[in-house]
C-alpha cells in the first residue's frame, strides 16, 4: 500500500524527519507512537503534501505511484486520507456542500460519473450513523462551533464518505471522552477491510484497546526507532518514553 524509505523532511530549514522508513500493506493497521515533538504530525503533513515542508531525501511509493510527485488534491484522489489533529473551522462552507464537491472531484479524476443528489444524501445518512454524528452537524459549516469530539467524529465521517485506501489518523483520540473514543474506534473498525489500511498516530495506548493494531512503531527524533506488536504499546504506557530516549541517545 505505502512504502516510505529514508524520508528526510524539514520546515523553515529545520530537519524534523531524519531518515524514516515505514511499510504498510493492505488490510493492516499500524500505530505510530512517540513523545511530543517527535515528528508524528510532520509525517502526516508530508504524506498529505503540505507545502510548508520540504522533502530533502527519500521516497514514498503509494500503491505504485510516486506520492511525492502528486499535489495534495491528487493524493486525496488516489485514496490518501488524513484525519487532522486540529481540524480547521471553515465558516460559510457547509460540510455537505464541501463533501459533495470533494466526492465529485474525486469521481471526475477517476473518470466516474457525478453522484446524484439522492444517492449522496442516502450516503450521508448511512455514513453519519457510523460515527453517530448528528445529521444537523453534517449540514452545518465545516467544523464551525463543533466541540472537540464532534470535530474528530466529523473527520471519521468524512473518511467514511470518501472511502480512502489509506487513512492516517493524527491523534484522533486526543480530547475524546471514553464514549466518543468508542464511537470513533467503532467507525474506524467498521470501515476497515482487506483492501484498505490505516495508520493511527497516538500517544496514548488507550485508543489501541479499541483499534487493535497489527504493528506498533515508536517514532522518536524523526525516525522509527522501534517496531513491535500491540504489547509494545502497553510497555510504553507503563514505562513512558524515557527508556527509549536513553537507549537511543546513548
Amino acid at each position, binding site marked *: 500500500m505505502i512504502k516510505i524509505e529514508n524520508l528526510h523532511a524539514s520546515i523553515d530549514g529545520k530537519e524534523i524527519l531524519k531518515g524514516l522508513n515505514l511499510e504498510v500493506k493492505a488490510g493492516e493497521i499500524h500505530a505510530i507512537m512517540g513523545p511530543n515533538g517527535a515528528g508524528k504530525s510532520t509525517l502526516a503533513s508530508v504524506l498529505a503534501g*503540505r507545502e510548508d515542508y520540504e522533502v530533502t531525501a527519500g521516497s514514498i511509493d503509494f500503491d505504485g505511484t510516486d506520492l511525492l510527485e502528486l499535489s495534495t488534491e491528487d493524493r486525496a484522489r488516489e485514496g490518501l486520507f488524513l484525519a487532522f489533529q486540529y481540524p480547521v473551522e*471553515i465558516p460559510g462552507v457547509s460540510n455537505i456542500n*464541501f463533501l459533495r464537491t470533494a466526492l465529485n*472531484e474525486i469521481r471526475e479524476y477517476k473518470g466516474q460519473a457525478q453522484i446524484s443528489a439522492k444517492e449522496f444524501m442516502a450516503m450521508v445518512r448511512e455514513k453519519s450513523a457510523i460515527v453517530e454524528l448528528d445529521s444537523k452537524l453534517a449540514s452545518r459549516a465545516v467544523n464551525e462551533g463543533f466541540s472537540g469530539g464532534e470535530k474528530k467524529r466529523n473527520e471519521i465521517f468524512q473518511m467514511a464518505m470518501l472511502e480512502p485506501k489509506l487513512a492516517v489518523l493524527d491523534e484522533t483520540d486526543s480530547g475524546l471522552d471514553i464514549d466518543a473514543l468508542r464511537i470513533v474506534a467503532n467507525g474506524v473498525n467498521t470501515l476497515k477491510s482487506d483492501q484498505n489500511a490505516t495508520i493511527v498516530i497516538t500517544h496514548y495506548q488507550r485508543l489501541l484497546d479499541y483499534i487493535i493494531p497489527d504493528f506498533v512503531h515508536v517514532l522518536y527524533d524523526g525516525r522509527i526507532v522501534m517496531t513491535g506488536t500491540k504489547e509494545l504499546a502497553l510497555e510504553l504506557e507503563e514505562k513512558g518514553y524515557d527508556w527509549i530516549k536513553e537507549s537511543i541517545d546513548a
Partner: protein
Amino acid sequence: MENSNKLSQFTSLFPSTEIDGLSAMANSARVFLSENDFPTTRLERFKYTRLTKLSNVQFDTSAAEFISDFHKYQICPDAIAIFVVNGHVFLPETKGPTGLIIDDISFAKSLPSSSMKDVFAAMNVLHAQSGVCVQVAKNSVIDSVIEIVHVCTGSYAGFTRNHITIGENAQAKVVMTYVSEQTNECFSHVHTSIEVGKRAHFNLEKVQMESSDLFSFSDEEVWQGADSVFQINTLTLDGNLVRNDLHIQVRGEHAETHLNGMYMLNGQQHVANYTTVDHQVANCESNELYKGIMDDKSIAVFNGKVFVRQDAQKTNAFQSNANVLISDDASVNSKPELEIYADDVKCSHGSTTGQLDDEALFYLRARGISERGATQLLLTAFMSDVLDKITVPSVKEKVFEVINKRFNWELTL
C-alpha cells in the same frame, strides 16, 4: 489656476440642465463650483482616486450613438422597467399598478435640495440632462420590481438625475442596473435622491456592471422617516473607475437602515465606496456590511462615516468592511469613521484585509478538491452574508452569472 481651468473646461462640455425642479439649487451649485477646483488627490475625498485621466478625455457629449436593443439589459424579467440610454429616458409602455407613478424627471416641479459634496454633485445640479422620477403613493404596496436601467454607449458623457419617493406606509423594491455597450471612454454621473416616508419599506439593489473604460460616478442621497426600513445593496461587478457615494440621513425615530456592498475587482479597476449614515434622532439602528474580493492590480477604497448626533440616544450602529486579496498587487484603503456625540449608544466598526486562509485551503485540498475549487468555495463563503442580503432572486442570479464569466469561475448559488 491650472485646476480652475481644468474645471471650467470640463464643465463647458455639458449643456445646461432643463430640469425645472433643480433651479432652486442652481445658485448654490454655481457658488460651489466657483469656489472649488477640479479634484486632486490632495482632497480627502479623492485621496486615492486620480482624476487626471478623466480631465484629459475627449468626450462626445452630443449624445452618442443611439442603440435600440437596450431592453436586453433588464435583469428582472417581470420588472416594470425604465431605461435611461445615453441620457434619454424610455418610460414603461404600459400603465403600472395604482399607487405608482413613473415619469421623466423634467416634469418634476420641485426636487429636494442636495448637498454639494464635490464638484461633480454641483455639476449634476447644473447639467443633468434627464432622469427618472418614481413615486409610490402613501399606503401602496408595489409587488412588481421597478428596474431603472442606465445604459452608456460610445463616448457618451453626461449627468443624470433621479428621484424616488416612497410615501408613508408604502413598500417598494427598485433595482438600478448600470451597463454599457461598445464604450470608448464614457463618463456618467447619476444622482438619485430618495425619500423614504414614515413606516415605509424600501429596498434598492444597485447592480454595476459597466465596462472597463467607463468613469462611473453615482450618488444616492437618502432621507428616512420614522419607523421606516431602508436597505441598499451596492453590487459592483465591473467598471473602470467607479465611485459610489451614499449619504443617508436618518430623520425619524425607530428607523432601520441596512447598507451592504460587494465589489469583485480585477485588472486595473478602481472602486471607491463612500458612505455616510447620519443618525439625527434617537432609537434608530444601522447595519453596514461591505465586502470585497480583489484580484490583479485592482484598488478598492472604502470610507464609511457614521455620525451619531447629540440627540440620537440609543442608536445602534454597526459597520464592517472586509476584503480578500487574491493577488499580491491588489490593494485596499479602508477607513471607517465613527463620530459620536451622544452618550447612550451602541456602535462598533471593524475593517479587515487579508488573504484566503491557507489552513482552510489545505484542508479542502486534502479532501480531493482542486486549489481552484477550494478557492471558490472559500470566496463564496466569504461573500455569502452579503449575497444573502440580496432580496431580488434574478439579481442574485445575475451576480453569479457575471462573476463566473468574468473570473472564469463556477460559483454556485
